[in-house]
Each structure stands twice: as structure tokens, then as C-alpha cells.
């Protein structure tokens, strides 16, 4: 048995990780290995070798039993160790001798007992004998080829035992800073002259410079500097002849040309550095890339890939978040239907949920020829399986299977989407079809929105550098699917992901990316802005200071009405007055505002008053509605709470609804430039005409926004005609403006045609059928070219004569 102690003067060197790597690799190589955690004050090896498992007993318990009785415990060591799974067919064995059930109160109590029982530095030799006896028993009872010890940092009695007494070899990890190097230098020199058990040669020391950043050249340079530092003032046997650098990130390897998104190349980055170190530590039979090493590295490449971040940047992640390291375990036996099988990688539902959802098994040869999946299908409930191997000794070859709960596996080829936890919210984690993703988003799983947007872009955009094949059917499926999403979070995600990224635009994004942003804004965000729920869009509008949702308004103004809408107008006017305009237009105001109102609208108040006037035909009746408006508002408020009263007020003698849009379902206040949606009246109306209430809200909001743009929109030459504001209804004899409503209905209809939204068009048609003649003109005008009506609008705004007749 060879004993290798891993020591670091300071923490944060990756020591425990290196112990775990070495232990697993040796076990995969067919060696019998015991990994002993002597970092008693801060044990952690069980997190690496047996994640999710709390050891029942450990070395602290063993030593308390030994020192308390003055003799070694009679119980076999198997009572204290935890066997770690190794693949079937290998001769290797791996046992974890954990510190104990840490972290827990019982563990700390046991540790305190140990420290009180006996100082390790005691001349009677009991503590030393207990520790040496443990080592001897490990050798006798477990017969390992290697005992790997994770030692405590700093200078401690137990750390000294682990390095100078127990070890044959000491791997001494340090990082590139002054205190780490000075401490390591002192420890290495001490180890060279440390007292050893009789007949045992001096400890061999392997200095390891860890967490090196950069590529191979940086590695050599760091190694030379570290050697110079460690040999400062050294003479004779104090001289260190070699240092083993290990890079910080297993994926870093600048001399490799493989794409970063592909798990490939077994000997790269930190793994190559590990390999050099292990070759030096265990020179016999370790030359070349052994199958065990390939498997070990392949497993870690897979794990790294499973936990690596999604595609995109921090502003715009394109793919969902990957798994967290805490969810993943290496090397476990899995199975729950009459058998267990070794899984190289296991992914759990969450860090707190021990239910495995994905397993990966390394197979010899071509994964496509393997039938291992049959076992997993039969004996486990995992929903995804990856069979992987090394193809050509360098690239990970894989075959992915997924299934619905209690279903059979479907071969997904080399699809890697299963690395997203979000995928497991789908019925089948491998089914990333557009319809499946849309179903998930509609059920509230907004994490797939970015993926759908990317898919829509691929189906619609052909930039200057080429693109994917246009697919109008997919594009329509996505936009219709997204438009039908309801729910605060999901709608917010759609608005956010499709709107232009102002930060990126200001950061100087160039060329094709800008074009793609613009394309997405105009062709996806703008129509979706109108089709998603009124509540969602108003909340989004009110929440964002940079108003990047204005594209929907601009679409209506320019594409449909032939106007422009300039939300920066006020800001620029102010800046011009200040004589400078260098300030970034961040907190500018828009000229439009939207609100949802659940109180009574003016038209309802008017009808309430009219009804009361008719009923209360008394000498004291008011001459003007303003005189009774307070009580009228109260009555209207009461009417809102009673469908019976609303029916009386809003239905004609034939019981058919008799509603107007403006001032009853919605409204536009030209003094505040505010569009209002009267939600309770819209809800009543939707019930009355039997249409989708959300669609009706959108139709009303659209209609009122046309009124707003007629007012605040600019002609193409920049002229604005404030006097064309929608008349307010304050009189008892109010009639809708045929001109205003005719234009509003026409442009609403044109916009609905453009949006091609079935429920909205249906709501519009049904609503119009129960409205006064002013609202029905669009039916006669639908064949009139939009350009003609735009001309009428321009004339009307300019106050030219005969516009109404022109409209007719």
C-alpha cells in the first residue's frame, strides 16, 4: 500500500477535488483505493465522493473509540467506511473513510471529545499508535493499493501526522501568492527532515501550483517563477527540482481548436495537468492514455458540460440555465425495479431531491451499438439517459434517450438539450418541438421563450451573412403560440426577450446584430405587443423607463395610419432649449400613457343619469349633468356591481347589447394623453357578445390608441394637429363623432388584418354588430385603400372641409 497525503498550507487550492479525482481515477484503473478525510475541522471529501450522502461514522469516531479505551476498536473497519460505487467489470474498489457525519452537532461534539481525550503530540505514544494502527488496519483489512489522505491546512498536529508520519508521498498544493508560497516552502523543507517511523525513507514531496490561469506558455512561466520562489535561499536537500502546475479550469486550453460548446478532447486543460501529476506520482504502468483515464476524463468533460452556462450573453441568454453542480453526482449505483447498475454521472431533480432524472453511462465502443438503454428503461425511472464514449480517443460520442413519465425511451440521437433542467418540465425532456415548447410557455414555464424567439428568428431572418431556411409555417406557429400566452411572468418574458435591448444598442452593437434586433422588434415584438394581454402590456409599458415597447405603437402609427410617433419629442425639445443634447435620453417621457380602470366610465354615468332623469321627472331635476354627476357616479358604481342594472342600461328594447367603444369600454383623454381601458365594462360586454374577454380588451385598447395617435401622431412632415383631439362626452345628448369613430374603426380593422389574430378579429366583428352606425362604417370602407383614408385623416387633422363626406 502506498500512502499519498494531499496537503496545502492555505485553503482554496483545490486539494479535496484533486484527492477525489485521483481516487476515482485509480479505482477506474482497477486499483483498490481508500480515501481518508483527515481534514477533521472542515471535512468535505464526502461531498466529492459521496454527494448527497451523510456518512454514518468516520475517522473521528474511530479515533475517539481508540483513544477512549486505549486500544483499537474491535469492530471491523468496514463499520467505519463507505464503499463508493465503481463500474461493473472492473477490479477497482473505492472506500471513503470520511471524517464523520459532518456538518452536524453530533460530529462537532465527537470532534471535541477527540481533542480532549488526547493531544496528538503526546510522548506516551498512544495517539501516534492509534493513528499508525489505523493505517496498518486499513492495509490489513481493506488491502488497498493506495491510501489517499486529505490533510488539514496549516500547521496542526493531525496535519503533521498525515504528512510526516503516515505519508510515503506528499502532494503539496499552493497558489501563486506570497503567504501560500512562504508557508509551502517552510513545510516542504521541514518534511525533508521530519522524523519517520523506523526503516521508512524520507517523504517524497510533489509541489503543485494550482489554479493557474492562462494557456500552456503561462503554465511554463508560472512553473519557473514558483520554482524560483520555493528555492529561495535553499541549499542541498532543500532544493525543489520540479513543480507541477494545474490550471484553474478543466475546459481552458487555448491550443485546442474544438468548439467550446462541444464536450471533447480528453487531455486538455486541467485534466492534462492532472495527468502529468499522476504520472509522476504513480509512474509504474501509467504511461499513455489508459482506458480508465479516458473514461475518467470523459466523465468530467460531461459533467463540466452539464453545468456550463447557456448560450448567449448576460443580457440575452438564448438557452435555458444549465444544471448546478450540486445536482450532479459521479459514480453511483442506480435502479429501483429489481436491480442496480453503475451510472458514471447522475443528475438529481434538485440539490435537495434525491430522485435521479438523468443518468449517463460510459460504454466501450460505439454508443449506437449499445443496448444498455434497455436495462435503464426496464429498471429505472430516469427520464433521460446519455450513453457516451470516446470517439477516436478525443471526441465524446453520445446517444441520448428521453421519455415521458412511465413511457418508453425515444432515441434522440446526439441531442444535448437534456442538460437544461428546464427540459424536465416538458412532458418528454427530449421533445423540444415548437409545439412542446409553446405548451410549456403557455403553462407558465417562461424559460423557453428565448429559445422560441431564436427559432422564430431562424425561420424568418436572412441577413447579409446568410441564415437558415425561411419557414413561414414555423414562424406563424411561434407568433400565434406566443400571442396566446397569458400570465404575468410568461408575458413579461416575451416582452423582455423580443424588445430591443437598449443596453446592447447603446453599447455599440454593430451590423448584423442590429439588423436582427430591428427585425425581431418590428416583426415579432410589435405585433405581439398588441396581441398579448392588455394588462400585461400596460404593466410592461408603465414599468420600463426606456420605453422599448414603443415599437407596437410605432407599427400602428406608421404602418397602418401613415403617421409617425416620436416618444423622444419632448425630451429633444427640452434638450434643445438647454442648448445641448449630449445627455443620453434615458428618463425621457412619452406622450402616451395607458391605464386600466375598474370604475364607471363616462358613458355609463351618462346613461345612469339619463335613466334617473326619465324616472325622476320631478320639478327639481338638474338642468345639466354636471350638477348631478356625483350622484350619477355613485349610481354608476352601483350599476357596475349588478349585471341586472347593466343589462337595463346597456341593452336595447330588443335585449341586444347597445354599446359604444369610446367612453364606455375604453377612452382617450387628450388633456393627459392617456388611453383608458374600463375593465369591468369590457368583461360585461365580452359576456354579452360571447367573445374572448382578453381579445376584446385588446380591440378596445387598439381602438382608443388610434384615437390617441390621431391626436399626438405626427404627419410625415412633422406637423401635429392638437385640435383634432377626440371630443369628450360630457353632455346628456352626446353622440359619437362619426368622423373620429369612422377613422378609428377603419384603422382598427386594418391593424387587426395585419395582426391576423383570430380571437381579436372575432371580438371586433361581434362588438361592431351591436354598436351604433358610427362604428359600422368600416364595413363599407373595407375595400377602400388605406392610402385614401390616410389622406382623409390628414385633411381632417388640418381642419379641411368635407372630410366627413369624403369618409362617406
Amino acid at each position: 500500500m502506498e500512502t499519498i497525503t494531499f496537503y496545502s498550507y492555505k485553503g482554496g487550492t483545490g486539494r479535496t477535488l484533486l484527492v477525489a479525482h485521483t481516487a476515482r481515477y485509480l479505482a477506474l484503473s482497477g486499483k483498490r483505493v481508500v480515501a481518508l478525510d483527515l481534514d477533521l475541522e472542515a471535512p468535505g471529501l464526502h461531498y466529492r465522493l459521496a454527494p448527497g450522502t451523510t456518512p454514518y461514522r468516520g475517522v473521528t469516531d474511530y479515533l475517539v473509540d481508540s483513544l477512549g479505551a486505549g486500544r483499537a476498536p474491535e469492530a471491523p473497519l468496514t463499520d467505519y467506511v463507505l464503499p463508493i460505487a465503481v463500474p461493473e467489470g472492473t477490479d477497482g474498489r473505492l472506500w471513503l473513510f470520511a471524517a464523520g457525519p459532518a456538518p452536524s452537532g453530533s460530529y462537532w461534539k465527537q470532534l471535541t471529545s477527540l481533542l480532549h481525550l488526547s493531544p496528538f503530540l503526546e510522548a506516551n505514544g498512544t495517539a501516534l499508535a492509534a493513528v499508525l494502527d489505523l493505517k496498518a488496519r486499513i492495509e490489513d483489512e481493506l488491502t488497498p493499493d493506495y491510501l489517499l489522505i486529505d490533510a488539514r491546512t496549516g500547521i496542526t498536529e493531525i496535519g503533521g501526522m498525515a504528512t510526516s508520519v503516515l505519508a510515503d508521498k506528499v502532494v503539496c498544493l499552493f497558489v501563486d501568492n506570497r503567504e501560500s508560497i512562504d508557508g509551502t516552502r517552510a513545510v516542504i523543507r521541514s518534511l525533508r527532515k521530519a522524523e519517520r517511523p523506523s526503516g521508512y525513507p524520507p517523504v517524497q514531496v510533489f509541489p503543485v501550483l494550482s489554479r493557474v490561469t492562462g494557456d500552456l506558455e503561462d503554465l511554463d512561466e508560472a512553473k519557473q517563477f514558483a520554482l524560483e520562489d520555493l528555492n529561495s535561499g535553499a541549499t542541498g536537500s532543500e532544493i525543489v527540482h520540479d513543480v507541477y502546475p494545474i490550471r484553474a479550469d478543466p475546459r481552458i486550453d487555448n491550443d485546442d481548436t474544438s468548439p467550446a460548446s462541444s464536450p471533447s478532447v480528453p487531455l486538455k486543460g486541467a485534466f492534462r495537468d492532472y495527468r502529468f501529476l499522476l504520472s509522476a506520482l504513480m509512474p509504474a504502468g501509467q504511461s499513455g492514455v489508459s482506458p480508465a483515464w479516458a473514461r475518467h476524463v470523459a466523465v468530467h468533460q460531461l459533467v463540466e458540460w452539464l453545468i456550463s452556462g447557456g448560450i448567449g450573453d448576460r443580457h440575452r441568454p438564448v438557452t435555458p440555465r444549465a444544471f448546478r453542480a450540486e445536482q450532479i453526482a459521479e459514480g453511483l449505483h442506480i435502479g429501483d425495479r429489481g436491480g442496480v447498475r453503475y451510472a458514471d454521472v447522475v443528475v438529481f431533480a434538485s440539490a435537495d431531491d434525491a430522485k435521479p432524472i438523468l443518468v449517463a453511462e460510459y460504454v466501450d465502443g460505439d454508443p449506437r451499438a449499445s443496448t444498455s438503454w434497455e436495462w435503464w428503461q426496464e429498471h429505472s425511472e430516469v427520464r433521460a439517459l446519455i450513453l457516451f464514449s470516446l470517439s477516436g480517443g478525443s471526441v465524446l460520442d453520445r446517444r441520448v434517450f428521453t421519455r415521458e413519465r412511465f413511457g418508453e425511451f425515444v432515441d434522440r440521437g446526439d441531442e444535448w438539450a437534456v442538460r437544461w433542467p428546464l427540459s424536465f418540465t416538458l412532458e418528454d425532456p427530449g421533445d423540444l418541438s415548437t409545439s412542446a415548447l409553446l405548451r410549456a410557455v403557455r403553462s407558465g414555464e417562461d424559460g423557453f421563450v428565448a429559445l422560441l424567439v431564436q427559432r422564430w428568428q431562424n425561420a424568418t431572418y436572412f441577413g447579409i451573412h446568410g441564415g437558415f431556411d425561411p419557414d413561414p409555417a414555423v414562424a406563424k406557429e411561434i407568433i400565434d403560440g406566443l400571442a396566446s400566452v397569458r400570465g404575468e411572468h410568461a408575458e413579461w418574458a416575451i416582452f423582455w426577450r423580443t424588445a430591443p435591448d437598449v443596453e446592447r444598442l447603446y453599447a455599440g452593437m454593430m451590423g448584423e446584430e442590429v439588423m436582427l434586433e430591428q427585425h425581431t422588434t418590428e416583426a415579432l415584438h410589435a405585433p405581439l405587443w398588441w396581441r398579448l394581454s392588455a394588462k400585461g402590456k400596460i404593466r410592461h409599458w408603465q414599468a420600463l423607463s426606456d420605453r422599448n415597447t414603443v415599437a407596437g405603437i410605432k407599427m400602428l402609427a406608421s404602418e397602418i395610419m401613415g403617421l409617425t410617433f416620436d416618444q423622444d419629442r419632448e425630451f429633444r425639445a427640452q434638450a434643445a432649449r438647454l442648448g445641448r443634447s449630449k445627455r443620453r435620453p434615458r428618463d425621457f417621457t412619452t406622450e402616451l400613457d395607458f391605464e386600466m380602470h375598474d370604475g364607471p366610465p363616462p358613458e355609463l354615468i351618462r346613461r345612469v343619469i339619463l335613466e334617473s332623469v326619465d324616472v325622476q321627472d320631478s320639478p327639481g331635476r338638474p338642468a345639466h349633468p354636471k350638477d348631478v354627476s356625483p350622484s350619477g357616479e355613485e349610481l354608476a358604481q352601483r350599476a357596475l356591481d349588478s349585471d341586472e342594472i347593466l343589462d337595463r342600461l346597456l341593452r336595447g328594447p330588443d335585449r341586444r347589447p347597445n354599446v359604444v367603444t369610446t367612453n364606455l369600454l375604453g377612452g382617450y383623454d387628450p388633456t393627459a394623453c392617456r388611453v383608458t381601458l374600463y375593465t369591468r365594462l369590457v368583461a360585461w360586454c365580452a359576456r354579452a357578445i360571447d367573445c374572448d374577454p382578453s381579445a376584446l380588451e385588446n380591440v378596445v385598447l387598439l381602438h382608443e390608441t388610434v384615437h390617441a395617435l390621431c391626436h399626438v401622431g405626427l404627419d410625415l412632415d412633422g406637423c401635429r394637429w392638437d385640435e383634432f383631439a377626440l371630443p369628450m362626452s360630457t353632455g346628456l345628448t352626446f353622440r359619437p363623432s362619426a368622423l373620429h369613430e369612422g377613422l378609428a374603426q377603419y384603422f382598427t380593422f386594418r391593424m387587426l388584418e395585419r395582426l391576423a389574430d383570430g380571437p381579436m378579429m372575432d371580438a371586433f366583428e361581434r362588438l361592431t354588430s351591436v354598436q351604433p352606425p358610427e362604428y359600422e362604417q368600416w364595413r363599407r370602407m373595407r375595400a377602400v385603400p388605406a392610402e385614401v383614408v390616410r389622406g382623409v385623416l390628414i385633411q381632417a387633422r388640418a381642419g379641411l372641409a368635407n372630410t366627413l363626406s369624403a369618409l362617406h
Partner: protein
Amino acid sequence: MELDALNLLTSEAILRAEALTDIGAPGAEASYLDVSLLEDQIAQATDPSSTEGALARQGAVGAAVLAGRTDRAEQLVILYSAQVGATDELRDELAGLIIRLTELRFQDRGMAIARGFPSASARYGAEAIVRLAETIVRQAEPLPIG
């Protein structure tokens, strides 16, 4: 402190240390350090040429050895040997005491280690473990930094 009181305390300390040793208590060795300190107090109050003084000096050195503090025992021998009135016979006796008691202690401790930790004893030698432990303690650290 009066010599009689010191003698009384020393007797009690010896009885205590022997009893702890008999039952294999973890603190047995440390209790001999108390004996050594008390015997040294008596030694300072007595003439080295007197029988009582010679016995006290032998007791202080011997108890230090049994406490596993050979370093202290050696310092005491140097000190007592240089005292005025120290006879050659006392000097020889003290020097021999360290060797004899150290061997005895190693044997005793070795036997206890061999009984309690047979695997380690078979692999490394029970007495060798005690000697290594003492060496490490003498160096004050398992890692002899500095």
C-alpha cells in the same frame, strides 16, 4: 512551603500517578510531571549530600523520565550535578537513572501499545512508536519548522 508539607504532597502525587498508571488512564504520564516538580521543590530545600536531598533529586529526575519529559530530566541532571555538595556517586546515579528509567518506560509503554494497538505494533514495533512519539514531542512539532 514547609518540607513536611512538600513531602506529604509528593507522597500523594506519587500515589496518584501510580494509580492512574495502573488503570491506564490517558493522563497518567502527565501526573508524573507533578511529582517531578514537587521533588524538585524538596531538592531545592535540601542539601545534595544529604540522604533526603539525594533521594529528592533522584525522584525529580526519575519522575520527569516517567512523564515522558526526558528533556527536563536531562536538564535537571546537569543542574543537580553542578550543585555544590553533589557527590560523584549522586552524579553517576542520576545519569544512570535516565538511561534505566527511559528503557523501562519504553518497555512499559511499548507493552501497553502492543496490547492496545497490535496492528501498529506488528508493523512498526511498539517501542519504536513510543520512541518516535517522544522524538516528535521533543521537536515540539511533527513538522519541525524553523
